[in-house]
């Protein structure tokens, strides 16, 4: 077998060394991409002003996974229940250790019903889940949004933050919604909020055309609607490193079948 420069043999080898032609190099690269489960080389747009929250989170996750792979102890860790603000590295648990693929999705669309509109206020987000890996099923999905300290409310005041899947939109009345998760936090808290949106992501994977997005509401304990921005929740206009995103955990439902080449 010939080796390109990208396969560096550090010790003695009996491999026959010869110069590869351009076509052979491309074929070897194609072969490696195929092992990685990719039909071709991804061409991401250059990341000038793109949100960086998801890549930073994923890099954190990668380092945690890589250190676990080093230790070779990928099993038997249970996932801590996330009920409070998480500002630290993401916790590793059974969901993560059993996942073959983790994918973060950038928020594509954001709609607000803010103080210029009638109550209740809300914020909507949308994620494109059409590019998910083939032959994999969702084991968990999280929606992550950053919350700053709320200046408009007393720091020790509790806020109910709930996230809904938009089931159906109507022109003459409110949309049909399905509640996915709810968290109670203090107005003075700051950090990432994590909501379980597994049910919605499963719906969207089965029926991509029904992906109408997520809607977030903030309320006081006595039921008054709070504008999400004034509660400190950051959207697309927030800093790049604090923009909302979605993370989905996949598990391979079957061993990949090698295609004869």
């Amino acid at each position, binding site marked *: 077998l010939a080796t390109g420069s990208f396969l*560096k043999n550090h010790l003695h080898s009996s491999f026959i060394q010869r110069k590869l032609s351009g076509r052979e190099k491309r074929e070897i690269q194609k072969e490696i991409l195929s092992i990685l489960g990719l039909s071709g080389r991804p061409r*991401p*747009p250059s990341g000038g002003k793109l949100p960086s929250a998801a890549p930073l989170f994923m890099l954190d996750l*990668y380092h945690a996974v*890589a250190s676990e792979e080093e230790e070779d102890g990928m099993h038997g860790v249970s996932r801590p229940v996330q009920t409070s603000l998480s500002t630290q590295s993401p916790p590793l648990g059974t969901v993560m250790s059993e996942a073959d693929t983790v994918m973060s999705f950038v928020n594509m669309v954001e709609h607000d019903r803010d103080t210029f509109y009638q109550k209740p206020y809300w914020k909507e987000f949308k994620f494109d889940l059409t590019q998910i890996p083939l032959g994999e099923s969702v084991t968990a999905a999280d929606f992550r949004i950053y919350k700053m300290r709320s200046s408009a409310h007393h720091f020790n005041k509790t806020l109910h933050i709930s996230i809904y899947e938009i089931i159906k939109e109507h022109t003459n009345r409110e949309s049909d919604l399905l509640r996915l998760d709810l968290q109670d936090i203090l107005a003075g808290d700051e950090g990432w909020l994590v909501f379980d949106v597994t049910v919605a992501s499963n719906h969207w994977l089965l029926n991509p055309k029904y992906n109408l997005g997520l809607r977030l509401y903030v309320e006081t304990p006595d039921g008054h609607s709070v504008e999400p921005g004034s509660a400190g929740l950051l959207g697309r206009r927030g800093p790049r490193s604090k923009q909302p995103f979605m993370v989905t955990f996949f598990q391979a439902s079957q061993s990949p079948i090698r295609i004869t080449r």
Partner: protein
Amino acid sequence: AAKQLKKRQQKKPSDLPHPNKLPEGFDHVHISEGRRVCKRHELYVSFRDLGWLDWVIAPQGYSAYYCEGECAFPLDSCMNATNHAILQSLVHLMKPDSVPKACCAPTKLSATSVLYYDNNNNVILKKHRNMVVKSCGCH
């Protein structure tokens, strides 16, 4: 091969090695000290050299390793040989043209993870199973 051996055993019992004795020529097996025994060698796959760092976030490459070396009789304890490999290496001595030596191959493989962007700037962390050779042995 085993069947052929049995037939020959019935026809020419005198050709057979004694169960407790090494076959003819076996006593003279000389193991050179410089023999490269089956073991793990480093093979680094560089994503940087592939020019893929515009979409691969991490790692820049990884140590994949490979197995290489001889699985010749007697198989050393460090060669991590299967019982079958030991038998095969014995039969190879008797019938070198028809039975090859045992193969030096991975006995344990582990996963490696790759973090990369897709075409839509989504970030994917993918665990690839059986990509890193943890140990080698004779099979």
